[in-house]
Each structure stands twice: as C-alpha cells, then as structure tokens.
C-alpha cells in the first residue's frame, strides 16, 4: 500500500475504486505502529478507524453517496475535542479527560466521511515551539530524529511528514501550525481569524488563535479548509463571507504585488534561510509577481506584545483547571478550596506555570499599564501598519522561521531565545491575518518553509499564491 499520496489523490482513488479505504486506513495504522516509536507523533491511536473505513467502502460499493473526505485518515492535535475520546492537551492535568462533545471542525470532517486515526502530540496547552513541553515526551522530526519537529503542533506536522495520516488539524496561536510545518516540510495554514470555528479547541489565547490544517500539498490544504471553514453558531467570533478555496486555486499570481518584510528577513536570519528567501523572491518574480521590500516597524515589538497578551489570556483560560468538575483523581478531603486548587494545579508543566505566573502579573492592577495595556497598544499599531502594507501589497513574504530546525534540547533551557523563533509568525495572529507556510527547500536534512501572508478574508488569494510558489519547488523525499 502506497501511503505517500496526497489527500486529493486518495479521495480520487477511493472514488474510482483504485484504492480501498479500509486497506489504506489499515495500512496507515500499521505504519503508525511501525514508525511512531521513533517519531512519537501520537498520544492516542484509534484502532476502530478501520471499521469506519470499511463502512465507507461498503457505501461506495452499494452506490451510496460518500462525503468528500472518503474515509481519509486524519490526525488531530490533542487540544481539539473528539467526543468519547481523551483530549489531554499533552498535560498531566487532563491526562484522563474524555470530551463529551465534538469540536465543530470534527463534526464537519465527520460529515464529509473523514476518519480520525488518533490524537497527536503538542506542547502542553500549545505553549511551546518544539513539543518538548509535552507532558508525555517530545516528538521527533521525521527528517532527522535528533531534530525537533517544531511546535506546538509538532505531532501534527510529524504525522503528516511521516505518512502516518494524509492530513492533520493543528492550532496556531503564534505560529504553532506554520512553525512545525516549516520544520517538517509540510504545508501549514493559519486562516483569517474567525474563518474556522474554535468551538471545541481548548483555548490558550482565544483572541488570536485559529485551527488550521497541515497537509502535504497546498491543494490538500485548500480542500480541508473548504470542509472546516464557515460560520458556526457555537462560536460568536466566526465570520460570514468566506468563499471556496480549492476552486480557482490555479489562478496564478501574475501581476500581484508582494512585499518582502525587512524585519523578518534581516539580521539574525540563518544564511541558508536567507538564500532560500532570495530564491523564493526570484521564482515569484518569474511567475509574474513584483516584489519590493517593506518595513513593518512594530514587528520588533511583536514578540514581546505576543507573550504579554497570550500570557494574560492563558492565565484566565487555564484557571478553570481546578480539578473540581473534571481532571484527575485527587481527593478533596481535608483541603480548603484555595489550597486544593493550588495542590491540583501543581500538575501543570514548567512552561504552563511560567506563562500563568506571567499572566497573573502583566495584567494586574498597578502593572497593566506598563505591560498588558502597552502590549494591546502595540497590537493595534501593528494592525494599522499591516493594514497600510496591504493597501500597497497583495501579499507579504518572509521565511516562516528565521532559523533551521534545531536539535532537541538545544533551546529548551533558554525560554527567551526560544521565544524569538516566533518573530516571523506572530504578526499574522496579532493582526488576524491569514498566513501559510509552504515547503521550499531542504538544507542538509533540515527543511525550510516560506511564509506568505495576505489581508483578512483574502484566504483564497493566499492559497492561490502558495500553490503557484509550490509548483516551482522540487524537494527530496523525507528520508524515513
């Protein structure tokens, strides 16, 4: 069974009878059993997925209509709720938590006959860039298992890259889909804020995060976005007016104006990444686009603002984990409420605790003015700047991450230098803009992704540009 095919190739194969969903899903599960010891992408694997796939085959044989996903095996980041399944956020706090309901993205994929093969690893509560903050141990980069797959949706990216699924759902708060996509050489998408329902996504920083697909190709990404995007009465922040993304994806980028963000391509960029970026610029120009440098001054402060805002929201969003209504087994006898909560919360990992302490401080009375409110000011200034840039440009380009994938353990003890890995990705989150990471080059065994960003609700245009860029690239196969 050839598992190295795209989601659309899979769907076509199942529909024309050349692929059996059952065989493919069974093959995928076998493959997971074989390679995941090395990759550790999965936190739970659903053996029942084969039964689901068998039902799809039956439907097809009997001429019944099947959904667009045709039983394709999909992995799901473990902060997205699936009914009746564990949803741990890679945290000891929720080690045995079983969600009683489906996230909206899950119901939408189910309606289109997707098959979930399991939940994948992440940094605890999505706080991190390497999956090293997972309470259940890190994931490993399929290109080189000494490297981090990136994060926080590292399990998602690794599982797509290692053919343990055809696509995955991740979440992107500051680059958490795009960063691991770049490190693992897959496509990663952060939609316009409000395009995809967050109902059932366990909040970290709810005002800026989005669920996004990770897939092998830009077309697969657009296909998945067509399934999961659209207004949802369960999420008041979802917006109307999104279109269709796969149709028209081959429209090309002739005549488009692309801004190269100088703050994301300058000092501190790895030489291999810088040269890949120049390469990308000339290929885009070769496709008929015009490229020009643009400066976004506020990007300098964006990471500081990002961590201030996300810590504030995290401090509030994670406050509910007091172990009273759900959680793990810890008797309440003999505790007063506050001391019980304190005791229960000691199960949070170090990064979560760090950010919650920060989140208790930066918005507190007497300090909010210097930190939280200032961060909000930067956020709105940045949004104005980016808005100005999109008056002139259709798209903004930068490398997704200014550095190459690094070794596991290299930065874990230096949280501040780890923060700087986010410099190119947080702007899209802080300003609500859509952004994509497209696999562009491999330096040694270290993948490099290019990031394109577009104006809000220009997701279709962004995917068209990403598709055009993708077509100029020939990459080696993952050495698995």
């Amino acid at each position, binding site marked *: 069974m050839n598992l190295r095919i795209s989601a659309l190739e899979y769907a076509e194969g199942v529909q024309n009878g050349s692929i059996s969903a059952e065989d493919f899903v069974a093959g995928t599960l076998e493959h997971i059993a074989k390679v995941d010891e090395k990759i550790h992408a999965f936190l739970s694997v659903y053996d029942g997925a084969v039964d689901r796939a068998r039902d799809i085959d039956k439907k097809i044989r009997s001429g019944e209509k099947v959904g667009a996903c045709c039983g394709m095996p999909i992995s799901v980041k473990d*902060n*997205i*709720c699936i009914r009746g399944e564990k*949803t741990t*956020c890679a945290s000891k706090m*929720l080690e045995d*938590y079983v*969600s*009683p*309901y489906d*996230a909206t993205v899950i119901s939408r994929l189910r309606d289109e006959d997707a098959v979930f093969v399991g939940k994948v690893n992440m940094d605890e509560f999505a706080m991190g860039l390497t999956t090293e903050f997972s309470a259940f141990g890190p994931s490993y980069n399929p290109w080189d298992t000494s490297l981090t797959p990136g994060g926080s949706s590292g399990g998602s990216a690794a599982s797509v890259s290692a053919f343990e699924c055809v696509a995955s759902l991740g979440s992107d708060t500051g680059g958490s889909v795009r960063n691991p996509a770049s490190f693992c050489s897959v496509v990663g998408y952060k939609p316009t804020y409000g395009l995809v329902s*967050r*109902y*059932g*996504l*366990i*909040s970290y920083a*709810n*005002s800026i995060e989005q669920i996004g697909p990770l897939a092998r190709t830009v077309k697969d990404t657009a296909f998945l976005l067509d399934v999961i995007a659209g207004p949802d*009465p*369960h*999420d*008041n*922040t979802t917006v109307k007016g999104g279109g269709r993304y796969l149709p028209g994806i081959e429209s090309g980028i002739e005549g488009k104006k692309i801004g190269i963000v100088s703050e994301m391509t300058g000092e501190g960029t790895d030489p291999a990444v810088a040269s890949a970026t120049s390469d990308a610029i000339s290929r885009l120009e070769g496709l008929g686009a015009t490229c020009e440098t643009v400066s976004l001054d506020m990007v300098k402060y964006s990471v500081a603002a990002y961590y201030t805002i996300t810590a*504030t*929201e995290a*401090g*509030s969003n994670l*406050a*509910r984990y*007091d172990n*009273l*209504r*759900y959680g793990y087994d810890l008797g309440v006898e003999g505790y007063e*409420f*506050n001391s019980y*909560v304190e005791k229960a919360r000691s199960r949070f990992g170090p990064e979560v605790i760090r950010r919650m302490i920060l989140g*208790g401080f930066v*918005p*507190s*009375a007497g300090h*909010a003015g210097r930190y*939280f409110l200032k961060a909000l000011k930067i956020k709105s200034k940045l949004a104005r700047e980016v808005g100005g840039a999109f008056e002139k440009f259709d798209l903004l380009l930068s490398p997704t991450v200014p550095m190459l994938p690094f070794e596991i353990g290299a930065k874990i003890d230096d949280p501040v230098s780890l923060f700087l890995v986010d410099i190119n990705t947080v702007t899209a989150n802080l300003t609500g803009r859509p952004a994509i990471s497209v696999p562009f080059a491999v330096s040694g065994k270290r993948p490099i992704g290019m990031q394109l960003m577009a104006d809000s609700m220009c997701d279709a245009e962004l995917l068209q540009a990403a598709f055009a860029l993708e077509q100029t690239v020939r990459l080696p196969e993952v050495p698995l």
Partner: protein
Amino acid sequence: MIKIGLEIHCQLTNLESKLLCTCKADYRGFGTNENICPVCMGLPGSLPRLNREAVKNAMMIAMALNCTVPEKIAFFRKNYFYPDLPKNFQITQLNIYGPTSVGGPGYVMLGKKKIGLLRIQLEEDPGRIIYEGTSKNMVTLVDYNRAGTPLVEIVTEPDFESPRQIREFVNILSDLFENLGVADPSLEGAMRADANISIHGGKRVEIKNIGSFHDLEKAAHFEITRQESLHSRDMEIAQETRHWDDQRKITTSSRSKEEALDYRYFLEGDIPWVRVEQDLMDELRSEMPESISSKRGRYVSELGVPDQVADVLSSDKFYSDLFEKSQTGSNAKEIANLITTDLMGLVDTREKRTASKVTATHLRDLADSILAGRISRSSAKDALYEMVKSGKDLDQVVSEMDLGNVSDESEIEKVVLAVVAKEPLAVEQAREDPKALNYLVGKVMKITRGKADPQITMSLVKKAINV
C-alpha cells in the same frame, strides 16, 4: 447623615435560555446539576454564545431607568477563583475603557428625591454552593444549574438617606421589571443585593448577601442602628465587609479577612462587541411597554381617573393590564374604582392572583351595570367576589345571588307603604323638610338590601306622603 449606595442583582427570569448557552434560564425545579451543558460548565474547548434577547432585555431596563445606552456593548472577564464559578472567571461588563456596559448613568425619581444610577451591567450568575453536614464535618456541594443565568446588576450612587427610600426604590424597580416583562424579583433567589452604608461621613461598610428586596430594607435598618450605636458611644466604625444573616436578621462581620482582590479585568474576546445600531434602539423602543409614569399621566388626563387611584393602578402591571382591557372611556373611572377599592383586596397575594378567574369582560359589565343603575355598588362588590372565585358571568352571578336592582314599582311600593305606616314621625318631618325624605328612602333601601332603584323609590315615597 446617612449615605447608602446599592448594588442590585436581578435575574432576567422571563428569558428562555441562559446568557451564554441554551440551557434554561429558569433553573428552578431541575434536579441537581441537570440544567447544565459544556458551555455553562466551562468544559475545555467550549465557548460562550451570547443570548441576544438577554442583551435586549437589559437594554430595555437601562432605557426605562433613564440610562444612556452606549454605541458598542462589550463583555469583560472578571478573574477570581471560587467553587461556584465553572471557568474561574465571570463574564461581566464594566466601563473602565469607555462606556461599554448596557447602561451608563441614569436616575430614578422618588417623588422629588433623585437617586443616581452609575451603570447597568449584564453578567452571568454563578452556580449555587450548598453546605451540608455539621460544622465539624462540613461538606461543600455545588449545583451549577444556576450558572450562566442572565443577571442584571444595577449600581446606584450613594444617594439613599434612609431605609424608607430604599423601600420606595425597590418597589419602583419591582414594578418596572414587571411592567417590562423581564423579571420577577419575588421568585426565590431571583434578586440579591449588596449595600454600602456609612453614617456621619464615617467609614463605609459593605453588606453582602442580602437575598430579597424585603431584607434589603431590614439590613439597612439594622446596619444604621448598629453604626449609630457605635457612634454614640464614640466607638470606631471599621471599614469592612459584613454579611447579612437572613436567619437572625442581623449583619455579621465576615470572619475571613477579604483581601483586596485583583480581578485582572480584560476584554472577553470570545464575544464580539455588540454594535447598538439605531435600528435596534428603534426596535426596542417599539417593543418596550409604556412606562408607568406615562400610563399614570394618561389615566389622569385622558380618562379622568383621580391622581391617587391612577398612581396605584399604573404601578402594577396586572391591574393596569386589566384596566386597559376593560375600560371603554366612559366607564374608566368606575372600573378604576372597582379595581383599587374592591379587586385589590380580593387578590392581594400572588397565589390569589394566579387563581383569580376575573376577566376584563367581568369588570366592564360590572361597571356598566353600576353606571346604568342596574346594580348597586355594594352588590357589585359581592358580585366581584363571586366572579374572582368562579369566573361566572355577570348575568349568572346576579340571578344566582339575587343582586339585581328592583325596579318593579309595585314591589317597591309595597315596601314604601310599609315604611310610611311605621314611621309617622318621620313622615311629618319630611312633609316640612324635603331633606328628611332621604331618611325614608334609606329605610326602604335597608329593607331591600340596597336593591331598590333609588330614583323610583324617591318618587314613590313622595307620592305616598303627598309631597
């Protein structure tokens, strides 16, 4: 000098669903933790889903209390840990970043006294904590059925100078809620209040946990007395939070020292700003029932109802609705009298009101009959009693209870002749002084139990004594 400011929380009990999910707003009658869902339990991944009707109701209250309504309404998170708070933050409103709560400054008039209102805010009610067992072996239980019930908070300026003013204020509020059809403050747990009380410009004491409008006045009274007694003995009044003990009807110092909590307020990003378009304001205005003061004015100037009667009638929605439906102009005054002097005494409790079978048609028929002289006022009262009880129509009641006026001359004449024969002295007087005729008429009325037509009786009496 007494200064009291109030924070009044009132559930919007007439709504179908909770503020942020589709569970029932009226949680009463559910088994423990049966009126809950992932959203109001704050389960991982759940998101609030704003109930637009709740916003509309709260805005109506704000408008009815003369408050400004902002252009944009926003919700904030108030972060603190408490077992009854499923998310360990409460979704509420405040105005620190500009006017964004459903109601800005407003006022209520108590006669000529003006009570300023700081703001009206809409928020979610927490769950309910139940303590069980003995003090040695206390168990804390939480019922989340109530969590997320829409709650309107009304914050006043410290403008109250006496418990009596508080009573007047809460009476106005109760009437207003009922008139708007948004809440029933008399339901158990539907209304709670905190009061800030200081005397002689001294330290401010906050009284929490007052569970009914009735107790609010009592608590204020108790606290003022307590502070006055300290003051008169030159003892210091501590700035503190005290709890209202509704069993013993006293305030007690909170045992645990409450630290000044930092709620780390920030915008609730999961609920987008609600833009208050002119359309919405117009819609609300058209949906809003006529205000009590406008009703009162109309009753007096258009329908000729006396001031005091109009006052009583307009402030109670049950009666004013009945009045509006039954009156046809000429009978308005009579119906207003029937309601305020007779009906109010008959249905003076909620239970009696609910059980009452009296309708607008009953009142209209009754008033018209009085005006046409077909029934006397005292018989009308008896008829009304029967209507409330059985719902029978006027004709049936009159014939069954024999309440109709007697206008058959021969029947009245018999009585008149009997009276004239029995009262020769009065007859003599009446011949000299026409005023004394009334005595004889009165005698006839007494014997006929008020049913004799007064005009016919008078002419028959005159005829019988040749005046």
